[in-house]
């Protein structure tokens, strides 16, 4: 009986204490911290909803706070729930910035009227045109290439290059039982298929993807990392992954028996996607948020932002990591990532039709 009472009382006490702390809500301004500029008191803070996971942005945010005194409050989740949250909160949202890891999600957020257009000479100069929204509602900050990776045991770079020139070649029956893919539920594959639809049209893309599924060595993996490990172990001969997963694997474990073949170098180029950000339509700290975005697009910060995840900086003046440089130069598909994003629902349906799990 005593322990029960204790448990209940303890729980109730915690409840009260925590509710008190919970009342310390996000949009509250620290009264009296900045007597010089009363209305600008909120400029000391930016609230970020980010689908780019915290371990990849934490250090930069801390640095920004140290350099500028502006506090950053971040909430991580997948893009779907974050966008839904923004929608439900409407004009009262505490969020100033939305960061996603895919252009499709930014496209959808913009479509729903959740992002505000931004006029910024800095962003316009730092982010290439095909990596941002034509209406300036969002900007790419890091670029990831969805490329072909293959096991180097038993094949040379020349051999492989002569057999596989592009994504479509992986549908060739000679890869039967050798191809590995990640789950079709993941946004990276949806974006890839959307890019192929933009290139080839739906019927031909459906043929290609059907060929991929017929060539599968094993059920689709739930992550690119597992897929790369399966290539290294010899379960798969070839697969399609985001380049940075291989970069991370090499950074963590050293050289791997895996090489990258940049697809369609004579054709449309490698499918690239972005991790990017936009200002929310109802941002309370608009100026501070814009400053943060501009800061994230500057060359020095870009190298760190992309480097933390072995990605390519969106800003062409910044350099990727040495490991990623080692993957060599490639020609990217110049199509606007916004257009690819808008075709994602079509891609998802196509993948359902061909039975890609």
């Amino acid at each position, binding site marked *: 009986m005593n322990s029960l009472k204790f448990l209940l009382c303890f729980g109730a006490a915690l409840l009260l204490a925590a509710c008190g702390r919970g009342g310390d809500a996000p949009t509250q301004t620290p009264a009296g911290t900045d007597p010089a500029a009363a209305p600008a008191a909120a400029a000391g803070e930016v609230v970020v909803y980010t689908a780019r996971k915290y371990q990849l942005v934490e250090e930069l945010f801390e640095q920004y706070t140290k350099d500028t005194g502006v506090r950053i*409050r971040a909430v991580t989740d997948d893009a779907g729930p974050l966008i839904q949250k923004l929608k439900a909160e409407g004009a009262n949202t505490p969020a100033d910035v939305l960061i996603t890891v895919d252009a499709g999600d930014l496209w959808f957020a913009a479509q729903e009227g959740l992002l505000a257009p931004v006029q910024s000479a800095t962003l316009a100069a730092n982010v290439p045109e095909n990596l941002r929204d034509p209406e300036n509602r969002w900007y790419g900050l890091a670029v990831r290439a969805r490329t072909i990776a293959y096991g180097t045991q038993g094949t040379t770079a020349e051999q492989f290059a002569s057999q596989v020139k592009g994504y479509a070649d992986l549908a060739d029956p000679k890869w039967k039982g050798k191809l590995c893919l990640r789950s079709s539920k993941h946004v990276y594959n949806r974006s890839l298929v959307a890019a192929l639809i933009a290139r080839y049209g739906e019927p031909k893309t459906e043929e290609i993807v059907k060929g991929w599924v017929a060539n599968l060595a094993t059920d689709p993996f739930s992550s690119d990392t597992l897929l790369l490990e399966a290539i290294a*172990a010899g379960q798969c001969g070839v697969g399609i992954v985001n380049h940075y997963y291989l970069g991370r694997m090499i950074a963590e474990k050293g050289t791997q028996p895996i090489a990258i073949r940049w697809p369609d170098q004579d054709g449309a180029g490698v499918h690239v996607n972005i991790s990017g950000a936009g200002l929310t339509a109802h941002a309370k700290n608009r100026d501070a948020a814009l400053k943060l975005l501009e800061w994230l697009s500057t060359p020095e910060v870009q190298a760190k932002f992309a480097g933390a995840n072995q990605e390519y900086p969106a800003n062409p003046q910044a350099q990727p990591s040495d490991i990623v440089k080692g993957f060599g130069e490639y020609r990217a598909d110049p199509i606007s990532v916004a257009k690819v994003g808008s075709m994602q629902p079509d891609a998802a349906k196509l993948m359902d039709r061909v039975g890609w799990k």
Partner: protein
Amino acid sequence: MSAVPADPAISGRSLRRGADAARATAGRWPLAVAALVALPLVLVLGALAQGAFGGDAEVVSHLFRHVVPGVVVDTLVLVAGVALVAGLLGTGLAWLVSTYDFPLRGFYAWALLLPLAAPAYVLAFVAIAALDYAGPVQGWLRTVVGPELRLPPIRSTGGVILVMGLALYPYVYLLARGAFATQGRRALEVAQSLGLSPRQAFLRVQLPLARPWIAGGIALVAMETLADFGTVAVFNYDTFTTAIYRAWSGLYSLEAALQLAGLLVVLVAGALVVEQRARAAQRHTALGGPAADRRRLRGWRAALATAAPATVLTVALVLPLIALVSWSARHAARDLDADYFDAAWRSLLLGLMAAALVCALALALAYAVRARPGAATRALARLATLGYALPGAVLAVGVFVPVATLNNAFEAVGARLGADWPFYLQGTFVVLLMAYAARFLAVGHAPVEANLGRVTRALDDSARLLGASGLSLVARVHLPLLRAGLLTAAALVFVDVMKEMPITLMTRPFGWDTLAVRVFELTSEGEWTRAALPALAIVLAGLVPVALILRRVDRAA
């Protein structure tokens, strides 16, 4: 949870007579209480139903043509498989430890509950990382046997069923053990006097008597399986829940997702009603009395009885813990910092708060049904506990939307009156706890309701004769009797909240990143081994209350 029955030691007829009498004196308050407890879920379902209107008819027809038929079959296979594995393990082990005596029995009796603390998604990623083709086990075997070795793949229907069965069997075990323990010796004595062997006695007497509890446990397991997203995502196994996510995040149609979710809720509610009807057709007669003596096993039988629980514990808990510890060691230098301990502290706090709240609600609901055991209160109870079958992210949307709407409306009124009303419901613990309560009431309600069924009305009458009535009756007579049920409920809810991801992610207050949030952030970037450190803390933090509380319950029982 409404799927769990009252004590079979009370006969149906006496229950009914008591019910009529109770309804005559109880008035309307039980209905009001039950309605209040069910309110969060009613709000959720209302928001979901409203959101489900409109949407793209083409998306829905696409889903029904290409996605739904496949996932219905896969979902049924998964639920049936997991129910079978968890049912067999849970019932078999419960029978073993309550009927026989063998070395380490006392330890196993409560230790077999410990796998509750390990989230199924953690078990899943450990199993795949260790046992898939590229993992260390198969890699080593290939060096021994030769590179052509092919084992049945862990990433398969069988694999996901086994992993979820191992993670979820404790629910069945917990309830089945309670049933076997309270059946008393007379049932067994009757069986023995009729010349039944222990196995026959089990199949023909003990098992049928325990069926309501086992069914209740399996219903929890089935609901958890239906709502699961983390584990099936790691296996890339498609279920109704993944189809809901697909509609939402792939086809950008929350409306279609909510329509599918609504269908899921209707199906689950239907299944529960059918199950309840089937059970109501059976009549259980009063037995009970002191617990039966356990038969002592000797020789190879004793060895086998000792080895079986050890195997289950090793596979479900010890091996995964070893893997987690070895991975954690790799990243501890970088990740074991103040942030980590803060996250652990927040997880603990949330778990405790939710446990206290759910226990209080479960108690209120169980009393409401007891005081007015009519169709209306029962329906409300069933409604209130339905949240357990809803995918967490869907439920989170269902909680978030009405709260945000209320918040916005309130601030709009404040603005019109020229006042700055400090009304921040959104982004507070109130929302988070309301969502937890809507999700986990079933888990807390099951043991409380089962336990309250044992507090007979005759007992109430005796207590009244001795001058205890009203709240004093509850405090002095009922609560001590309900202790085991409440503590069990608290432990179950606590570990469930520690493991919970989507609701915590969507409705947590600023800065309230928990261990489960860390695991989510790392695993969604494919950093499995780095996720081991927070995952390990979830398991360890869950083990302590499960061990402490359930041992105490055991001693009391």
